[in-house]
């Protein structure tokens, strides 16, 4: 792939990412330890270290349309092991958020993106997860109404699916976290 570096666009993108990330992209050694330990690396189109480098080079379209940012499961193996203490998981979150705001829909990982949106909505309105609502909304969105249905009785049996959702007492604190990120 050929990239023509536009100095101003590169700087703007890097500044946006770094301000949301509270970390510096130039910290990265490009040693690849993040990619070496990533459990979902085999499904990704770009390795985590490539995402960092391409972000630093201002390759906005490529990273925001990558599979990688949606396939990251935020397990934090990368961040835990990073020799420079770089927020590798964090950059995936930041890039997902920027993609969302720009209205970019992932072409390959649509359902992951939908889950991401439903999940965050759920957290925003309850301060925690209300599984039944989450599942319902996700199924309506993806239109896969009956998939995984046999799991429901088991979950009910184990008390994992509650009929009534709980909302935390200090919901305004959650609102503040969301606001800070914006």
């Amino acid at each position, binding site marked *: *792939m050929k*990239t023509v570096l536009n*100095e101003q666009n590169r700087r703007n993108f890097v500044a946006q990412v770094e301000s949301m990330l509270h970390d510096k992209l130039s*910290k990265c050694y*490009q040693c690849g330890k993040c990619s070496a330990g990533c459990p979902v690396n085999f499904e990704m189109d*770009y390795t985590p270290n490539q995402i960092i480098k*391409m972000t630093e080079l201002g390759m906005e379209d490529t990273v925001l349309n990558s599979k990688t940012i949606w396939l990251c499961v935020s397990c934090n193996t990368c961040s835990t092991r990073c020799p420079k203490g770089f927020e590798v998981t964090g950059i995936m979150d930041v890039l997902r958020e920027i993609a969302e705001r720009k209205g970019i829909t992932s072409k390959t990982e649509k359902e992951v993106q939908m889950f991401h949106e439903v999940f965050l909505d759920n957290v925003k309105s309850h301060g925690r997860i209300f599984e039944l609502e989450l599942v319902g909304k996700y199924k309506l969105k993806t239109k896969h109404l009956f998939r995984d249905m046999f799991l429901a009785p088991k979950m009910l049996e184990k008390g994992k699916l509650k009929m009534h959702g709980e909302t935390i007492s200090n919901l305004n604190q959650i609102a503040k976290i969301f606001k800070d990120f914006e």
Partner: protein
Amino acid sequence: MSRIGVFVCWCGSNIASTVDVEKVREEAAKIPGVVSAVDYKYMCSDPGQNSLRNVIKEKNLTGVVLAACSPHMHENTFRKAAVKEGLNPYFVEIANIREQVSWVHEDKERATAKAVDLMKMMVEKVKRDKPIEDVRVPLNKKALVIGGGISGIQAALDIANGGVEVILVEKEPSIGGRMIQLDETFPTLDCSSCIMTPKMVEVNQHPNIKLYTYSEIEDVSGYIGNFKVKIKKKARSVVEKDCTGCGECWNACPMHKNVKSEFNINLSERTAIYVPFPQAVPLVPVLDRSVCLHFKKGGKCQKCFDACGPKCIDFSMQDEIIEETVGAIVAATGYDLMETSMYGEYGYGKYKDVVSGLQFERLLSASGPTEGVIKRPSDGKTPQTIVFVQCVGSRDPEKGVPYCSKVCCMYTAKHAKLFAHKVHGSQSYVFYIDIRATSKGYEEFVRGTMEQDGAVYLRGRVSKIYEDNGKLIVKGADTLSGNQVEIAADMVVLATGVIPKKGSDKLAQMLGISYDKYGFLTESHPKLRPAESSTAGIFLAGMAQGPRDIPESVVSGSAAASKILGLFSKSEYEVEGTISSVNEATCVACFYCQRVCAYNAISRKEIKDRNGNVVKVVANVNPGLCTGCGACVNACFSKSIDVKGFMDDQIYAEIKSLAV
């Protein structure tokens, strides 16, 4: 009749577990001429050495053979013990049955047989040994340092401070070398001239240092302790002792826009009569006769002569040859930057704003053509975006050299850092293959350039640079993300690699020291004798040996100096006596030996009768230069030359002992 003693060492279990030492002892006792054969657990221990001495005394031995470890380990130990009993040290021979037998074999029977063979050979050799005296060479306690860069200056100062006279010869009009061209130095960003000029002045004022600038080595002959050196002092056209360095002459020179400054690497102009830079040492100008109107137009122009107050301009000055005798030499000839003309794709020379690393250094320097304000050569504008390309010429076996130039990673990081400091809001991009930042504080320095100063590093080489719409378009790769990258830059800096100074190979030939295929001077041993050349009395320092940075150059200068001070601390230089000797009766003066000698140790000697007529010419070995390598022995057709202690009859006897 020989009276030989054989001593078989067990070396604890090192030898005894694989070699039947008692069998070796028994076999030794059977050899005619062997009057004593013993074995002992540790021959090198004090009791071991005492038993050796006792046997020499009691049995009145004429030769000693030790079947033990390598002579590298304990030859000296046993020789010293033998000398104490009045034996010539060269009557001690070692059969190496540890490194060459027990450590490398498993089959005890066959290992024992080999040990017996080696022991027998040495017995036959020692029977034919003749006493050898070590050679003593007188020393002229004066040193010559060739090259007035940082390593040469350091060597000269250290030697001079040790109380020894030094002659420092520099080819250029001023000392200072490459370092004085630099702006600030990594990783501490000390200003180069601020730390360099005091040293240059110290050299000039030191009572023990005689400084010849604008001078070259014309000829070197002789050997350690006694080198005869001819120095050509080129005609400066200015009488040094009268000149005050006032500058009236170069201000008067009409040639002020026509000659490119070598010091500023063509980024500015100089006059025909000039000092390379304002802090030059000595601050005495040189008249460049190849461009001076006085010489080109038949003596018409003499503006500098008229302007000079003390009247020290001398148009008729001639080159002068100065002869000196010195005991030791330091070769610190330094380096040049590689040409980049083989990279047409980078457009160096075609695009004015593609500059070399050293040129950028001059653009950064306060004493440079732009007085430290970064301006690009084409239009004098301050660049906002600079692309740095590392490994230009280095690590390129196809077009350049395969080796790493070692300093470019660091100076590029420094350039990017200083650029960020001097031009706020600017951006630099660095293309690299690997970053080599291995000394103290270096890695942190490079990371600082990236993390604090915002330089973007791209791992990959640049393929092409071309001009488009006033910008230099750099086409490179980022192999980490697997992308082709194109950057529009205002300026490009090529981190050109280093090569040995032009002409250093000729100097090496003159000195009789070896150099590698690139022209870098080679050390006597790359690890254990890094300051010594292949020739005794000649030492090496600085980049002449290979790429290195300033601290390493300083260290190497000091190392050469300490070697020389050590050498001069004795009244004579002692050489092992195992050197070549000529049988003058049979020598036919073909001088094949002279041709193969790598150390210039063989000369012609005339044998005269009492009336002074030459009767015969023979080969003559200079004991100060001969290393006893034996190349001449192989080359001699008439078998007239032999290495003492390794004579033909000894070698043949050794071989014969195996046939029995």
